[in-house]
């Protein structure tokens, strides 16, 4: 479980996050949704420590990450995996080396054990026979899978994904979404996914936080989201035609 309280962040006088609090649950796919530029990515970066928030606390199962000393920070970081928007695979390393990298750096496992774990993770995300390919030789969807495998290889407790299905076709998007969802339940991971894809929200959103202009306007599960009376959220959900059908008939 991750709890955040009153996170604030400004970039040169522009207040991007205006005090955000909320909880992300273990074994659940927690979504952060909102329009472009509302600060979703910034919030995610604050949570993993890539950006230092100006104010506020982030608790990883009760451990304060923002004010942690170096040892505790390192300890928590080793439990964090992240899937980046563009996959962020190291392009000088092969698929296998990419997935093995966290183990190389963070553990003292013997090579054979590492290899076993890498192959297990690659298989789990549905990839085989690509171990020796370079990232430039595989498709975008495969890169995302490798990214997921790399994120979870070190038995992580927390998984963060920034727009896992941007740039993918609808079918592959659903596959990736489901993969994240399954892995979350299977390994009891606390997963936080940033997205603005309503499809993912309906498919895999266990718990949803809606951001608007740097403020949390709403949170809850995807069923109750459809009947929300928050105006901004309604505008967001029903922006596309397909979702309008839900509005008229919430039972579909």
């Amino acid at each position, binding site marked *: 479980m991750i709890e955040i309280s009153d996170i604030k962040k400004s970039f040169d006088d522009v207040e991007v996050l205006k005090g955000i609090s909320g909880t992300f649950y273990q074994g659940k796919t927690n979504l952060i949704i909102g329009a472009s530029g509302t600060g979703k990515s910034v919030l995610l*970066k604050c949570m*993993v*420590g*890539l950006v230092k928030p100006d104010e506020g606390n982030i608790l990883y199962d009760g451990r304060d990450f923002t004010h942690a000393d*170096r040892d505790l*920070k*390192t300890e928590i*970081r*080793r439990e*964090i*995996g*992240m899937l*980046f*928007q*563009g996959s*962020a*695979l*190291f*392009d000088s390393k092969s698929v296998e080396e990419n997935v093995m*990298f*966290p183990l190389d*750096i*963070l553990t003292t496992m013997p090579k054979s054990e590492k290899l076993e774990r890498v192959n297990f993770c690659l298989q789990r995300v549905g990839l085989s026979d690509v171990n020796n390919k370079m990232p430039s030789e595989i498709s975008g969807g495969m890169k995302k899978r490798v990214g997921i495998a790399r994120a979870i290889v070190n038995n992580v407790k927390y998984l963060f994904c920034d727009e896992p299905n941007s740039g993918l076709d609808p079918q592959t998007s659903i596959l990736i979404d489901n993969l994240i969802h399954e892995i979350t339940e299977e390994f009891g991971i606390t997963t936080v996914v940033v997205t603005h894809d309503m499809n993912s929200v309906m498919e895999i959103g266990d718990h949803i936080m809606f951001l608007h202009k740097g403020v949390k306007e709403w949170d809850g599960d995807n069923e109750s989201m459809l009947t929300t009376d928050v105006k901004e959220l309604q505008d967001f959900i029903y922006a596309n035609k397909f979702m309008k059908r839900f509005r008229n008939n919430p039972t579909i």
Partner: protein
Amino acid sequence: MKSIGKYFMFLGSLFVNRESFRTYVKLILDESILIGVKSIFIVVIVSTFIGAVTAVQTAFNLVSPLIANYVIGLIVRDMTILELAPTITAIVFAGKVGSNIAGGLGTMRITEQIDALEVMGINASSYLVLPKVIASMLMYPLLVILACFLCIYGGYLAGTLTNAVTGEEYIYGIRFGFNEFTISFMLVKSVVFAFLVSSISAYKGFFTKGGALEVGIASTSAVTNSCIAILLADYLLAQLLL
């Protein structure tokens, strides 16, 4: 001014929170191959020709019946050791290795690879940059020694082929009044230049913001700034040490 301060803070960050010694040894070896071995070709070409040109032009300018031919060897030697080998090679090095470092790190930055390292709790600046700086400082002096040798040899070839000077005279010239200190001076210069080129280029690449266009800009400004720093340092070292 602000960016100079940021540059020094960046240098400081290379030395905090490092990985294990073994990791670095491997990274330094990899970088040495990339930085050192892959630069040999261009260094060979440039230094041989510069030596040849220096010999031919010295012959053209100086030779009168009053000045002995061996002076050509002597002048090529002193110019090579003091200036041509360390400094001209440094400019070439900035163009090849500097732009490579800045482009590589810039790409890693904009494709979030640096963020990925940092999420894993790795100090990305030290993990990525320190091996490049150390490998440069190890490899560049070797390249300079090679350049020095080839430059003088290029002078020999050009001088003898054009009959400006005989082989014996040239050899006599390069041994005449030789001051060993110039070699130490050359090596000091090369270590300083290697540090400047690699750290400035890494700095430019590491803090790239934006997209592919900015990576190109970072590469260019890495080369320009490295060249300026090389020439400034060249002047300062000459003032201090000679």
